[in-house]
């Protein structure tokens, strides 16, 4: 009798197999062991170590020339500033549409299963940023999004029904969410943007079941706290240091690694003497408590808008013959850094693009400032790199196969103009402090994919591009590196040599992580550009 019941249940399961694929359940253990299921893409950068690396290798250096568009999805209404990276689990892809819509697609066909949009206020404040979303997180049977008006929302992964919706921060004051949340075992981690509106940055943890806030880490210290001496009086309260992208997690150390943004006002440093902790830093927080374990500040007392919000890349490698737990960071300030991720100690660093603002790094990784590189009034000061930095927020990739760190770099400078505005009380009217840049002409700039030896930053090869690009990088076990140009090409390079092997003109630059997944034994490469969400596969 029991056997019969099991047979019935099995039969029902088989008959219902399409529904089975739509029944979502992604417990923490699956994300933790994401490397064991390369057919899925369970977190923003593919894994907690933010390597932007896929173990799939059906598409490889031998057959890449045959790669073709398999399907495309386009939102009902044209969108602007599409920067959405997907999550793929159990036959479903979760994407966002600007500003804060979540859509579930069938990964075989690209057809839409459901879509959800928040009710946003008539006027969403988005100062110094685009009101967009870089993606969702998944945990259990819920997906999570941070909205343009700074709410964190949990949706039923199967149908998009709202489970809870919490107000995280005041959008009227300039807080706006663009970065994807990070799902841990029993927490949803999310930060906010808003440095240009002079908000005070933070990183939050929420209970995935209830939306209750579990802890908040303020990214600038109050008077009396360690680091408070790095600010002028009161300046910490409107200080920036926002956390507007995704972070990384080391489950063994139970540490969260998250980058922080520029200080405010950015181009007027008159009233914020000191290093301005923890702006332009990576902070390591205890995942249970949100307490600061260590920090490393890339650009002390920064005034060129070089946020440090790129996801930190975690990898293990030998340094002087000894295995080490490392953190790699190609910083917007133009230097590549290797840190010991157990304690934040500097191991190695060197420029990965032309830079003129520092003479180098000292033994602790602190920059040695070069003279006359501060923004000035009037025509400004020519500084390399430009405001967009050596690379901005777009994710690099690390391949454990090659030990190389792949990054899309900007080779350009700009005239930096000092601001004269001050921070005022009340809701911000625009970018605080004024000032800014004048860009060099396009012919004086170029972009490149550079492969750096991850443990040293030494350049192994480069693939030059016409213009600086804003396209993250994906590397795969197929020996490929995928990225895009600012002119709208999507391409694959040989991961060992940088030789271009395949190219497709998309008609618009990509602005999201290329990712890879597999369904029905077929590997796909996915990317977005303009209004299009595109999956590529072999014929």
């Amino acid at each position: 009798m029991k056997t019969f019941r099991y047979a019935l249940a099995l039969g029902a399961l088989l008959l219902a197999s399409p529904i089975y694929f739509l029944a979502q359940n992604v417990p923490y253990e699956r994300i933790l062991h994401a490397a064991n299921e390369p057919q899925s893409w369970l977190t923003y950068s593919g894994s907690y170590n933010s390597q932007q690396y896929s173990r799939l290798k059906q598409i490889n250096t031998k057959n890449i020339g045959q790669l073709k568009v398999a399907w495309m999805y386009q939102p009902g209404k044209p969108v602007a500033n599409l920067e959405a990276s997907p999550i793929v689990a159990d036959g479903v892809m979760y994407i966002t549409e600007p500003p804060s819509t979540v859509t579930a697609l069938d990964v075989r066909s690209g057809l839409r299963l459901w879509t959800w949009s928040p009710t946003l206020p008539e006027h969403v404040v988005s100062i110094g940023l685009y009101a967009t979303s870089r993606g969702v997180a998944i945990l259990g049977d819920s997906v999570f999004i941070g909205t343009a008006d700074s709410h964190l929302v949990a949706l039923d992964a199967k149908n998009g029904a709202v489970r809870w919706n919490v107000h995280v921060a005041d959008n009227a004051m300039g807080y706006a969410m663009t970065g994807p949340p990070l799902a841990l075992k029993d927490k949803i981690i999310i930060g906010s943007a808003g440095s240009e509106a002079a908000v005070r940055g933070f990183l939050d943890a929420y209970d995935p079941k209830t939306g209750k806030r579990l802890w908040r880490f303020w990214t600038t210290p109050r008077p009396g706290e360690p680091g408070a001496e790095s600010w002028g009086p009161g300046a910490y309260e409107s200080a920036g240091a926002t956390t507007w992208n995704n972070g990384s997690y080391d489950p063994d150390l139970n540490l969260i690694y998250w980058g922080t943004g520029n200080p405010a006002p950015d181009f007027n440093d008159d009233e914020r003497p000191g290093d301005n902790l923890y702006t332009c830093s990576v902070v390591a927080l205890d995942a249970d408590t949100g307490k600061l374990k260590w920090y490393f500040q890339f650009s002390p007392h920064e005034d060129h808008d070089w946020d440090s919000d790129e996801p930190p890349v975690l990898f293990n490698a030998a340094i002087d013959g000894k295995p080490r737990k490392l953190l790699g960071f190609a910083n917007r300030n133009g230097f590549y850094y290797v840190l010991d991720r157990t304690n934040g100690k500097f191991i190695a660093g060197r420029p990965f693009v032309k830079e003129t603002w520092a003479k180098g790094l000292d033994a602790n990784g602190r920059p040695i400032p070069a003279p006359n590189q501060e923004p000035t009034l009037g025509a400004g000061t020519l500084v390399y790199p430009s405001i967009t930095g050596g690379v901005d927020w777009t994710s690099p990739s690390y391949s454990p196969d090659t030990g190389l760190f792949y990054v899309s770099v900007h080779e350009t400078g700009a005239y930096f103009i000092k601001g004269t505005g001050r921070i005022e009380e009340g809701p911000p009217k625009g970018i605080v402090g004024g000032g800014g840049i004048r860009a060099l002409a396009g012919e004086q700039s170029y972009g490149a994919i550079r492969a750096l030896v991850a443990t040293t930053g030494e350049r192994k090869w480069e693939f030059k591009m016409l213009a600086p690009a804003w396209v993250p990088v994906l590397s795969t076990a197929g020996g490929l590196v995928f990225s895009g140009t600012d002119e709208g090409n999507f391409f694959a390079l040989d991961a060992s040599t940088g030789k271009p092997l395949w190219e497709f003109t998309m008609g618009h630059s990509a602005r999201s992580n290329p990712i890879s997944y597999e369904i029905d034994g077929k590997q796909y490469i996915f990317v977005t550009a303009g209004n299009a969400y595109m999956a590529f596969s072999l014929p």
Partner: protein
Amino acid sequence: MPALRISAAVRRLLPAALALTSLFAPGASRLFAQDVATANPLPADVDQGKATFEQRCSVCHGLDGGGAMGPNIQGIPMRIGAPVVASTIKNGVTGAMPAFGGQLSDAQIQQVIAYLLTLTRKDADTVTGDAAKGKEVYDASGCASCHIIDGQGGDSGPELTKVGALRGPSYLKTTLLYPGSDLPQAHVFLETGGLLDYMFVHLVTNEGKAYDGTRVVESSFHIVIEDAKGNFHSFRKSDLKELKKEPGKSLMPSFKDKLSGAQIDDLVAYLAGLKGAQ
């Protein structure tokens, strides 16, 4: 392929078209009644507007708003009305000027307008020649074999129907004497400069065939050039063994030794007066 040329011409001419059309729009004379910041700007608004202008606008319009590759916009709200300026800043001009609506708040746009109102139009860059004589010089010098004015002429060089609304006299003079020495930028990104228009390109294919021409469009993987006869040639970069960009060179000859100083000034006066159909 001609579509490329049309779009290139249109994107250069649209801002002027928009500005001129708006002069005759109903209500344009009711300048900025509803705009608080511009009706009664505070010094702080003007300062903020100046800062925003220097950061966002000066790349094309010059640090003093007197025009660079983009047109002179000193005092433009007075001439075409603050609402039109606000809407242009917000929505941009397709192919010619980025939309700043997502970048600047309404308050910031009003601050920029308040600042623009403080800039009195300077006419240091004045025309000294005789436009009627300049037209004769134009017709006699073969300019129309490469340039279109009011639908007449060849298309291997830029259309000039509205060139006077886009370029100042000194820029036009420099171009006549030293073609290619100061190329306009095709379009400007907010944080990276745009590529130059009319870049002279010399390239050689892997088979050894050489081409000279003006760049029409380029990506990291492809380039299309237009030769002196107006033919387009499209290449994959992987099929080229040489690709040399030569700013300073041009398919257009210099008129430095072909025309007298007075003739050049007359020609400049003619071109500077070309503002398109009104």
